[in-house]
């Protein structure tokens, strides 16, 4: 066999040889400048996207209540700034994204038609997965959105594989892998941290810390609740980000993405956020008080927060109201579409099990 050059897979230095590793190197950069300088146009676009997610999810909750959506349905209400802030910083058509089962918001942040998302929730043929996936299993390879995974933590190692593909193809892209504070206790997350750091994979791990793993508060399930520190054992720099502020999330994304694109390996970003609704629709929410939820809504809401900035920067109340009205219309149409389009043909039962015929 021919000899291949014995070139190292990545940079010559292994992470263990890097004596300069500092956990907080990226945090320092963020602390120097917390918020992204967004143009009014950009802010308006963030506002629209977040509002679309909010209204979409509210409607999904309603349709669930009416029995139009079945099974599990995990709403993203309260967490909108995370997906919108991060995904707005991606290079479209190059970078890949993967997440868990709370995936509607990430799809919408890509600008994917709300109709095909809602139709997937109602299990219709026009759904983005032809009605075969449901709320937790939606994908858009066109946007390099790789799902939509129902096994808690599995998306982290799959994301490692997507990052490996970027590195292998040398395409300059990165993978954004989201997981929750609950998934952060799964073993495979750390297996992936190890390999990602060892091989300097272009991946940003994002912990969406919404404070509760189903009904278990972080303090009751995690010995280390500062999730951004959890990459320390693997020499992965960590960042702690206010996930309720879309401009801070975007700024953090700029810093993290630049680090990863320089070939320096993975970043672990913790976005502190909050989910207003239950873990899933059937959550009785006995593990927290109504006051706690109300307090976040009143003081930290990502949409209200950005609205304030927009108003300070010359937008007026009427313009924003008009945006809301338009979005309600879009969501209404999506719901009507999802309710009225047909279920999949019975013949679809056996399609897509395998790609090839044998």
């Amino acid at each position, binding site marked *: 066999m021919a000899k291949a050059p014995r070139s190292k897979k990545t940079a010559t230095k292994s992470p263990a040889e890097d004596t300069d590793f500092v956990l907080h190197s990226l945090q320092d950069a963020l602390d120097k400048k917390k918020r992204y300088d967004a143009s009014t146009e950009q802010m308006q676009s963030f506002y629209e996207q977040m509002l679309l997610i909010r209204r979409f999810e509210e409607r999904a909750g309603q349709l669930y209540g009416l029995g139009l959506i079945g099974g599990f349905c995990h709403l993203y209400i309260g967490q909108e700034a995370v997906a919108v802030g991060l995904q707005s910083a991606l290079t479209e058509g190059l970078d890949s994204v993967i997440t868990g089962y709370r995936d509607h918001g990430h799809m919408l942040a890509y600008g994917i038609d709300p109709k095909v998302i809602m139709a997937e929730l109602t299990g219709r043929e026009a759904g983005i997965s032809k009605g075969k996936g449901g709320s937790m299993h939606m994908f858009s390879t066109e946007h390099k959105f790789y799902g939509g995974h129902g096994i808690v933590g599995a998306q982290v*190692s799959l994301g490692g594989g997507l990052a490996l593909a970027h590195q292998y193809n040398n395409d300059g892209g990165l993978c954004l892998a989201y997981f929750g504070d609950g998934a952060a206790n799964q073993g495979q997350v750390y297996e992936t941290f190890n390999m990602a750091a060892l091989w300097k994979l272009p991946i940003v791990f994002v912990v969406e810390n919404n404070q509760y793993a189903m009904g278990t508060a972080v303090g009751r399930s995690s010995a280390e609740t500062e999730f951004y520190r959890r990459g320390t054992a693997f020499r992965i720099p960590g960042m702690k980000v206010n996930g309720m502020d879309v401009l801070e999330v975007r700024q953090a994304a700029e810093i993290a993405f630049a680090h990863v694109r320089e070939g320096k390996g993975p970043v672990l970003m913790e976005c502190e956020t909050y989910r207003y609704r239950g873990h899933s629709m059937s959550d009785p*929410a006995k593990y927290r008080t109504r006051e706690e939820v109300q307090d976040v809504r009143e003081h930290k809401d990502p949409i209200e927060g950005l609205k304030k900035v927009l108003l300070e920067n010359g937008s007026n109340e009427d313009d924003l109201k008009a945006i809301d009205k338009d979005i309600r219309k879009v969501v209404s149409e999506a719901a009507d579409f999802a309710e009225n389009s*047909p279920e999949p043909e019975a013949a679809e039962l056996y399609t*897509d099990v395998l*790609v090839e015929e044998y």
Partner: protein
Amino acid sequence: MAIELKMPALSPTMEEGTLAKWLKAEGDTIEIGDIIAEIETDKATMEFEAVDEGTLGKIMVEEGTEGVKVGTVIAMLAGEGEDASAAAAESTEAAPVVDVPGEGKDVGRAESEAEITKPVRKTDVRDPDVPEGTSFTSTSVREALRDGMAEEMRRDERVFVMGEEVAQYQGAYKVTQGLLDEFGPKRVIDTPITEYGFAGIGAGAAMGGLRPIVEFMTFNFAMQAIDHIINSAAKTNYMSGGQMRCPVVFRGPNGAASRVGAQHSQNYGPWYASVPGLIVIAPYDAADAKGLMKAAIRCEDPVVFLENELVYGRSFDVPDMDDYVLPIGKARIMREGSDVTIVAYSIAVSLALEAAEELAGEGIDAEVIDLRTLRPLDKKAILTSLAKTNRLVIAEEGWPTCSIASEIIAICMEEGFDHLDAPVTRVCDEDVPLPYAANLEKLALIDTPRIVKAAKKVCYRD
């Protein structure tokens, strides 16, 4: 237009509940997020939250009402600038939702269309012709597997190998010997001992467009990774409506080796063969190992490729052909016969062939079939042979319960009953974890005499 507020469901199985309490009164202003009412079932209490703003119009179901059906209009909400009393006037009879989709009813589809269409299997596929005059080289199964991988790696830049000790160590069982030298560390990747993680990375890389070959040092260790093999690799194409493929090969030795104890000695063929969305291959000889390895790597579907440590060192003739690719899902008749069929796969094929020799000495002409692929199973080959011999024995190095053998017995009962002259019989390992002691291990594992005995029995010659 006034909005109807309907009785919500707390879960997909909830059909009715109690409207425990109204927290807003008629005429109250409602903001988004306000709690309007409390709903109770035997399992939970839920707060009914407003998702629209407006003024509460007429309350149509009084608090304390039990057995309120999901979907019943419980109140009206007047929008901005609307008259709440008008909203009340507009209200109609509370009618429950008649057709609840998601519960199996065909919304917008005529009943006659609701037919299940199972895909038709290809029937005309055969092994490629080996042209007359083709030379053969005696090759070990180990080398044949390596050659298959190397050829595909030369052909397709996207193909790479990852696993424990596959690169510098040259493979724990030397199956990847020489690959690092030829293809370099980018395409032959040593992983840490971290099966769940690297199986996920392999599956993810396949989703991202590469063609990974993930080696498990043995399939016993793949138990740690079985979630990715099944939940990630096998189901994604279906869950995504055909959008997202996962063309990955999971390979490594499977089944009992020699004196390695219970945790290192298990046949996972039946486990993986039970999963829709997977291709499961378990070859016996070197030519099949090479030809099917090449097919597995080219396959657009996820493949579990089960090898056998005890067979790695055995040599067989492999045709010297540029591109020897075998069809997936096709069994092979290893020996033709007319009195009894012995179906086997992997290492049990050699035992079946030995048994056939012995039976020939006693005047019984046995046909031996090597399944080669366990999913999709070549039912046609089994049933065709059964129609010829009318007697069938399955030889399987693995546990008998819920085995490939059990599956074949079911197929023969359902689709070959009229051809049966004797009960289909299975010869498997004993139903125990594999013991270490040499004598007990020998007792636990399938062997040639047991196959001979079973074959004679179905021929009523015992």
